[in-house]
């Protein structure tokens, strides 16, 4: 209850008790019984710093910005005569507003909650938009099909008729090329390899590879395995579902909760067995570390969040990565890179990490292309109605990439890498692949399966 709502009598009696020397601070807000972000809303003092960081508001005249989507929306809705505004669907969930707020307002948590409520209460479950978003959000469920017949899938997905149909029937932009499916998934490779080459009860990590490294870029996942084995780690690869990132962004909170339940259960059990969790995708680690504890009360969430790491960060803290990299070099296939720090790495304080780590490796030159957002934000830039906004946001990054004087890109986020490739035509590498080349050597990639 706020001061304004308290009756005059109540206020007077507390004035009197102060005079009597018994004044106690007022409990302004009752304990929240369900999702209630009102206290967060009242921390907002309207400085609008979040708005100046929103990549969507900068290019899209229709988008009212994070301050509206969060604190203002919650105030508007207090009297139950307002629905969540549909503009929340234009938020790309880049989460940049989170690390900007000088008052620690949980902006992305508010946005995620509002979006969930909007989809639940205001979006028709029979609409094309809902169906399309559900498909995009649940990429993890479709990917196994494509991965079972990767060559066919790649051909079919690449056909212009497929892309045309995708746009006409589903609203998935025909401007983008679908990512290629690997002919062998990471998990298939892992199974054939009989798992970890190292057995070490004292140094054990559980790898959360996420969907993309499994189905589309298993070379990233294999790089992680080889780099960690080089440091003597035993790797376990638990059962896992999608991290939930695309589901949050589409307001599919129930789908995300189901995924979170699986992931928390499996990862918690690995932690019980003495492992720490590492992830190679910055959005996966973001989701487990921040969004799970913010949105779900699944048992063990806090423990899993506190024991989940970015894969490179983990090595920096638990090993002397810098010394290990001293004197290493990589071949000409890794030469000059234009590096883009994904928003979700930035929000974890990891934006400078790749440059710092690769600084000591001979033969690789990395240029940071600055703090602009790539604009794709997962499934966001795949939607027909967002494509133009997504490319406008990305324009600054594309320009900086071409000014960087490199002809290849480097990043840790799968969808940022799609956007970087789409906007510049560059081939995009993951930091772990460079570390693999430096620490394990060029022959690693030919390891027999």
């Amino acid at each position: 209850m706020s001061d304004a709502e308290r009756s005059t009598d109540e206020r007077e009696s507390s004035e009197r008790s102060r005079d009597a020397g018994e004044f106690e601070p007022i409990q302004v807000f009752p304990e929240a019984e369900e999702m209630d972000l009102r206290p967060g809303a009242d921390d907002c003092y309207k400085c609008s710093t979040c708005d100046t960081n929103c990549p969507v508001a900068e290019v899209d005249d229709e988008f009212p910005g994070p301050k509206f989507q969060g604190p203002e929306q919650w105030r508007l809705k207090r009297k139950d005569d307002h629905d969540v505004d549909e503009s929340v669907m234009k938020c790309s969930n880049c989460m940049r507003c989170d690390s900007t707020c000088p008052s620690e307002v949980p902006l992305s948590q508010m946005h995620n909650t509002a979006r969930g409520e909007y989809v639940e209460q205001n979006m028709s479950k029979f609409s094309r938009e809902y169906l399309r978003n559900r498909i995009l959000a649940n990429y993890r469920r479709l990917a196994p099909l494509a991965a079972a017949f990767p060559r066919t899938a790649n051909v079919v997905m690449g056909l212009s008729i497929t892309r045309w149909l995708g746009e006409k029937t589903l609203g998935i932009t025909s401007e983008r090329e679908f990512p290629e499916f690997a002919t062998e998934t990471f998990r298939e490779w892992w199974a054939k390899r009989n798992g970890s080459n190292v057995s070490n009860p004292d140094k054990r990590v559980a790898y959360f590879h996420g969907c993309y490294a499994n189905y589309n870029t298993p070379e990233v996942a294999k790089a992680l395995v080889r780099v960690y084995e080089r440091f003597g780690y035993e790797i376990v690869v638990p059962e896992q579902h999608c991290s939930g990132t695309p589901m949050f962004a589409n307001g599919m909170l129930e789908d995300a909760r189901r995924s979170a339940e699986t992931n928390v259960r499996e990862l918690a059990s690995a932690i019980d067995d003495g492992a720490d969790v590492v992830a190679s995708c910055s959005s996966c680690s973001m989701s487990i570390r921040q969004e799970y504890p913010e949105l779900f009360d699944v048992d063990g969430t806090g423990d899993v969040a506190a024991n989940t790491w970015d894969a490179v960060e983990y090595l920096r803290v638990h090993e002397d990565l810098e010394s290990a990299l001293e004197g290493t070099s990589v071949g000409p296939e890794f030469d000059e890179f234009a590096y883009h720090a994904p928003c979700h790495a930035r929000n974890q304080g990891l934006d400078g990490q790749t440059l710092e780590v690769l600084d000591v490796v001979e033969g690789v030159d990395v240029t940071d292309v600055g703090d602009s957002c790539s604009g794709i934000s997962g499934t966001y830039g795949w939607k027909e109605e967002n494509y133009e906004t997504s490319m406008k946001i990305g324009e600054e990054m594309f320009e900086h990439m071409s000014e960087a004087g490199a002809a290849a890109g480097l990043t840790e986020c799968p969808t940022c890498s799609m956007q970087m490739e789409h906007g510049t035509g560059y081939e995009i590498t993951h930091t772990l692949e460079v570390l693999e080349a430096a620490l394990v050597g060029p022959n690693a990639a030919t390891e027999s399966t």
Partner: protein
Amino acid sequence: MAIEDDVLVIGGGLAGAIAALSAADADRGARVRLVTYKQSTLRHASGLIDVLGYAPDGEGPLADPFPALEGLPRGHPYERVGIDAVREALDFFDGVVGDAYAGGHTDRNALVPTHGGTVKPTARYPTSAAAGLASDDRDGLLVGFETLPDFDAPLAAAHLEAAGVPFDCRGVTLRFPGIVRDDAKVTRYAHLLDRNERVGADALEEAAITTDGGEIGSRDALAAAVRDRLADETRVGFPAILGDERADEVRADLADALGVDVFEVPMGPPSLPGIRLEEMLYDALEAAGVRVTSGVPVVDYETSAGGSDRIARVVVDRHGAEIPHRAEQYVLATGGLVGKGIEADRERFVEQIFDCHVPHADDRYDWFVDDVFGEQPYARFGLAPDHELRPLDANGDPEFANLRAAGAVLGGYDYAAEKSGAGVSIATGYVTGTRAAEESG
């Protein structure tokens, strides 16, 4: 294994950035890291660099801040570092920002019109504000926009005239061609102009601009909207939304198209001149090889074994994972009550990371006076340092041998009343960074 550096600066505002730059500059061998949590209050700041606009007793506006620095009370940050250090620090700042700032040619304060139509005494100002100085006697036109209520141009113009500026000033309010939202963000205006985005025929018509047909670039469209409203004025002031990355280009194009000088009037938060200064500082940090870790807080510290008075390492919280960071020397530049380096509850004021001593009265009813604009004691609350800017404990001894503090986390001054915020941040940032680098070697 901790993340290892020689100098670790905690806080990424003006004081922290200058400290890190000074440390990197003082000793080229020192490895310097800056850790910053949320974005700094530079985004609230006008971008003006004031040193001292008013004496602590209220005298002012001061024509020259330096003579007044001599008379500052013991404990004021400028008294702690000394006037020579203030001068050196300003020279250092001038070197960092180069042509982007003016005012370094003289000790005297410049008078810059603000968005409220007041005149602020300041030591340095962005070149974008240069043509707007109140000491200049050329007549001026101020242009405001219907969708940007933070700047009421006719009111600001009237206020300036009432303040006695030596020129005629007029204000007009226009539609901004290409902006439709009532609450478009300042970054949206800046982006339109930076990119010179095309403005369609409908938007031109709405802004009452006639062209030979078809769409035109937003810079031309803005110039066209202003042209008819210009009388004999030889300079035009806009709210500070004229571009971000390419602000100089935007201003030059508008000046060319209008045939008059163009300037920006600094605005309240969120402020593009503050954002541009922040970007300039971070570019300089990158160029100087300073490692920057942002978005994560320092939450704790450990001293060396045996109850030593040296900080051994600090702990950075990354979403629950605790990442140790070790350095020889530490600079605390986390800000005051606004930046949240210091927080208050009903009992006491607390410095958030090291719990350094914050001198203040025990009874909270002695923290403030009833006159809102009176001399508020709480405005001066903050750390009390020695002459090397090491925070002192309640007994007057340094809290830690290897910790210095810079910027608004320091007490002993009221930056809002004195107009001394940026100057204190630069002077104390410079001194702490330089000393930290010297001692880290």
